[in-house]
């Protein structure tokens, strides 16, 4: 009896805190077995690399919370990136504004398809995944463009209060999104829509507007990630930026304990999910494992992490 109870408790604990435990375990492993791991520079690198994925994953977590999914985030990043060189002549602010506007439009478009036309999220956003990058390439005339505007590039290189700009942005956004989910009517409505849409309708929630808002937000966040990645790369590269980002983001969200069935959003978990996957990648590279092994190990880690964090059906 007590054994059973202990097991139940352990399970619950793992479910709740599994990602954190995994992050800690991986950190310990690296400290023990990876050369030069314990250095400020190294942690900076990990955070800087994780920042764009994290920003995208925040938006993805919201979408997943509504029982949806957004496959077009990578394409949206490309769209945002493709616009930057066109407007950078007018200064970084207009360029960034245009990029974010593109993200907003892309997201709103997805949201419209999902909320007002009732198209299933996977298919609705698949259309933009297929066409969006093409559009970005058309805008950019198919070319990578080297950027030279120092103010814009500073976004990718400078620190504020000793923290890289990208990391700072990701951190602030994470806090804001967490507050949005936990404290606002919008956040409540979002989770309720994901948990039981029909009930949301009858409770007088603005279900469609909430969905539209969630996808729009996801689009904007993807665009933010696109801007930051572009600044970091010091080039607008619509062909490659954000490639397979949708899968990375979804993985991070799910590994972080947000179920794909909606009705629940875990923001801190999502951030930890991003950190976990980043550490996994870093570990594999640092130990110079060949691509084949790296991919198989990643697969195994995803399965184990999600297995531990899954919602158990009692039997």
């Amino acid at each position, binding site marked *: 009896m007590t054994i059973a109870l202990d097991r139940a408790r352990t399970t619950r604990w793992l479910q709740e805190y599994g990602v954190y435990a995994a992050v800690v375990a991986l950190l310990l492993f690296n400290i023990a077995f990876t050369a030069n791991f314990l250095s400020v520079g190294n942690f900076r690198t990990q955070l800087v690399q994780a920042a764009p994925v994290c920003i995208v994953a925040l938006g993805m977590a919201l979408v997943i919370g509504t029982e949806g999914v957004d496959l077009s985030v990578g394409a949206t990043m490309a769209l945002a990136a493709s616009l930057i060189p066109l407007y950078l002549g007018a200064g970084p602010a207009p360029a960034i504004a245009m990029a974010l506007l593109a993200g907003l439009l892309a997201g709103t478009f997805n949201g419209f398809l999902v909320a007002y036309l009732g198209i299933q999220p996977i298919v609705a956003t698949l259309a933009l995944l*297929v066409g969006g990058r093409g559009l970005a390439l058309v805008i950019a005339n198919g070319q990578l463009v080297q950027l030279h505007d120092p103010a814009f590039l500073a976004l990718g290189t400078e620190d504020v209060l000793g923290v890289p700009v990208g990391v700072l942005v990701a951190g602030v956004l994470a806090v804001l999104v967490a507050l949005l989910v936990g404290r606002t009517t919008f956040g409540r409505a979002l989770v309720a829509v994901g948990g039981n849409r029909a009930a949301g309708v009858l409770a007088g929630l603005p279900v469609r507007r909430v969905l539209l808002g969630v996808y729009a937000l996801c689009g904007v966040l993807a665009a933010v990630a696109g801007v930051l990645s572009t600044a970091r790369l010091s080039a607008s590269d619509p062909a490659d930026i954000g490639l397979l980002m949708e899968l990375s983001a979804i993985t991070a969200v799910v590994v972080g304990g947000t179920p794909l069935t909606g009705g629940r959003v875990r923001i801190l978990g999502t951030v930890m999910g991003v950190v976990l996957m980043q550490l996994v990648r870093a570990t594999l590279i640092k130990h110079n494992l060949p691509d084949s092994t790296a991919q198989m190990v990643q697969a195994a880690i995803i399965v184990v992490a999600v297995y531990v964090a899954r919602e158990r059906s009692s039997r």
Partner: protein
Amino acid sequence: MTAQMTAPPETPAKPRRELVASVLQRQGAAIALVVVVAVAWLAFPRFGSPDNLRDLALQSSFLAVIALGMTFVIITGGIDLSVGSLYALGGVLAAYGSQWGFLAALLLPLLVCGAIGLVNGLLVARTGMAPFIVTLASLLFARGLLLAITDEGSTTYQIAPGSAFLELGRGTVFGFGYPVFIAAALCLLGGLVLRRTRFGQSVFATGGAEQSALLMGVPVARTKIAVYTLSGVLSGFAGALTASYLQSGVTVIGVGTELDAISVVVIGGTLLTGGAGTVLGTVMGVGLRNVIQNIINQIGTLDSNYQSVVSGAFLLVVVVLQRSLVRRR
């Protein structure tokens, strides 16, 4: 295809308007296909050439085999993202196995890809993990395995020119490649299994309302395991066919094929939420995709960047149309 496959499930026999609407909805892809083909035939003189049609059929056959498995998976309410990787892996294994003869070339990919599909199924059915994430992991795993057996992709296994296995992908009847007939036969069989066997009924029941199906005594777990295994086997088989056709186990194929397969299944009218769908619809979806692709080629002057924009827009149009037809009902 035969009458059994064409018959939409549970035709409501009552009012005619309802019937028309339901046919439009269920066979939306077929109707769109007819329209698109007619337009292409009129607009592009070379579209109707035997060579073009043969190539169209052949190219469609590989995707059709993969999408067949995907149809089963999606009807159970699941999704299989690993098919693209398994397709590539299957091709490599077939080429590798061909050195020991026909049977090895055929069985090796079926066994390995089937085993990965089985693991997908076990994880989905027994642990309650989301199919999306389970198959995403096996997408990575299968790619990794493929790289491992090809020295990080540096070795491409060739099928010896005299090998009997080559005939499978390269033989023709009336100029149409064997894969066309094989895919047609598989789809026919798949349609029959889906519509006319208890297993097929279990597939529909599992996707329609899993909890109810369980209470009604449907072997839900076994059904899920079976469909993921089937999807794995079929992807591996499509890979083997492709390898035979290409004479080698090419490592660079199959990237993004899962999205192709999902979109053709959806275009074919199968609900992503599960519980409804037809094999015929999927076949039509495959046809539609490849005809559009072919038309883009016929135009010839379309900038390569615009091609994906057109594909995306097209997918959107079909899905929106289909949705509005469903709504109308």
